[in-house]
């Protein structure tokens, strides 16, 4: 069959495009199908793309004219902030170390970034030996994954059209309807498996951002928040600097949101009114409000398996995401899993075997990579971060201590140890603190 592809990729987000890039560079015949008007049209993230895999897909991307680039700023200033209703106590780290290329973290806006990456993939297709036989197709919704008489996935159906391939990579994102359709995940995924992200993009002059955040035009800051930010709901807040806007938002545990009867945008409004945030976003104009479900990063949420005969699941469709308190990682996992899925396709083609046994290589590769190593290694940290104490007790304690420690007035100053002790008994207990620090020490 001449019109059969080596691979069909469903979804033109980061996982799908990364797979496509690898396939294009290796002269494979593929079809990538994106339901949005363009790649990125349907994608939302916080978001920072951590890690360095982008340099592998687009070598020396940093040498490109910054005005043409798909990314916003590289992160060289990181901050984790504990909040109570009026204070913010931050762990703040800035280092020239982060200025070295390849960058370790890039702030991105997906509508722009994914479209840029898709252009790079198209360039790679044009330079490949099968330039006329590989395609990036947009505006098409895949309705169904097709299987042959033996149950091996062999194509997709979109409207009345059917397309066939030796393999299919499902990179459809967290709302993984096709993954459920092929039977790799339950039809209904409960609320405690996911979080709802809400975000505003707030426009601000580039110069204002540079001055306000002490940046130089291309360097950027990532700031995560715990505590008051989420108004008692499990989760956290974030603020990232784009070139000429800020991304400000929250990630909220959906089950907790449901139980506490709160509206995500009310919490976001409250977060924006906190003095620490208000000072950072002052004068800006909201140019886009957005929301999207995000995986909780709990491995129990993962599909039963991420491969079957002729098919692999990549990116957030496989719930590859982690927030262990250090960074919210998801786009880097999408990138790596897309790359590994593409490698698996190439090896399968070489072996002339697209069976389940062969597709298992994808799982093995992911297990050997930092993606599943980290997800497994930090599950305890993920769960610690989701403890109710992390929502109020601990941030309150930290801020209470901070207020005492940094206050200078005309009364005698107690020793820091006493201040800390007071903060502990007021907001938590030694027992709780010990329990959590033991957990943290073990898990981080």
């Amino acid at each position: 069959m001449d019109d059969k592809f080596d691979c069909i990729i469903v979804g033109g987000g980061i996982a799908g495009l990364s797979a496509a890039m690898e396939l294009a560079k290796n002269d494979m015949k593929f079809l990538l199908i994106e339901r949005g008007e363009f790649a990125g049209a349907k994608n939302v993230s916080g978001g920072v793309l951590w890690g360095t895999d982008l340099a592998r897909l687009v070598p020396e991307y940093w040498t490109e004219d910054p005005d043409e680039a798909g990314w916003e700023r590289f992160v060289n200033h990181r901050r984790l902030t504990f909040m109570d209703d009026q204070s913010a106590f931050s762990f703040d780290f800035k280092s020239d170390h982060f200025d070295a290329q390849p960058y370790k973290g890039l702030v991105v806006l997906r509508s722009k970034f994914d479209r840029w990456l898709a252009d790079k993939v198209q360039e790679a297709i044009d330079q490949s030996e099968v330039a006329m036989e590989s395609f990036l197709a947009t505006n098409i919704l895949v309705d169904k994954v097709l299987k042959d008489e033996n149950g091996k996935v062999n194509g997709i159906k979109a409207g009345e059209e059917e397309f066939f391939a030796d393999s299919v990579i499902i990179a459809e994102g967290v709302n993984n309807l096709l993954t459920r359709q092929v039977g790799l995940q339950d039809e209904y995924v409960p609320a405690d498996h996911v979080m709802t992200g809400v975000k505003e993009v707030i426009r601000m002059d580039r110069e204002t951002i540079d001055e306000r955040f002490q940046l130089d035009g291309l360097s950027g800051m990532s700031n995560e928040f715990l505590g008051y930010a989420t108004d008692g709901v499990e989760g956290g807040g974030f603020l990232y600097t784009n070139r000429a806007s800020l991304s400000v938002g929250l990630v909220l545990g959906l089950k907790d949101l449901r139980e506490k009867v709160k509206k995500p945008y009310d919490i976001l409004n409250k977060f924006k009114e906190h003095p620490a945030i208000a000072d950072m976003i002052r004068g800006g104009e909201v140019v886009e409000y957005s929301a999207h479900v995000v995986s909780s990063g709990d491995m129990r949420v993962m599909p039963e398996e991420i491969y079957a005969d002729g098919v692999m699941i990549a990116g957030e469709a496989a719930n590859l995401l982690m927030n262990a308190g250090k960074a919210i990682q998801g786009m880097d996992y999408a990138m790596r899993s897309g790359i590994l899925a593409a490698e698996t396709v190439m090896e399968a083609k070489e072996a002339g075997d697209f069976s389940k046994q062969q597709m298992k290589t994808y799982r093995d590769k992911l297990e050997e990579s930092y993606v599943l190593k980290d997800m497994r290694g930090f599950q305890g940290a993920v769960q610690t971060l989701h403890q109710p104490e992390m929502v109020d007790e601990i941030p309150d304690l930290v801020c209470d201590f901070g207020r005492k420690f940094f206050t200078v007035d005309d009364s005698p100053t107690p020793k820091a140890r006493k201040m800390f002790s007071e903060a502990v008994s007021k907001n938590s207990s030694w027992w709780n603190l010990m329990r959590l620090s033991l957990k943290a020490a073990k898990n981080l």
Partner: protein
Amino acid sequence: MPEKKSLQEKLGTINYRNQAKSDIKAHISVDTDICNSTCPHQCTTYVCPADCYKIDENGKVYFQVEDCIECGTCLYACDQGAVSWEFPDPEEGRGVNWNYG
């Protein structure tokens, strides 16, 4: 502080597909009989970030797809089996077209 915007104004910043079309094919269907009879929480009326699930003057839940931003929240939040969720059809459906994302 940026000027305060109501949710309606915030939703106004969003670029939707087929915005000019009056007759669109809804990608989510909600069996509101469930919401209005056995559901103990009617949570979609407050967890939906785009306020697509509303309560009418008689206290009944109803669903409006127009402002839906395909976030997926209701797909997980509803544990009563009332929500059938699909991706919008590119030609006949609604859904978002993010400017920033």
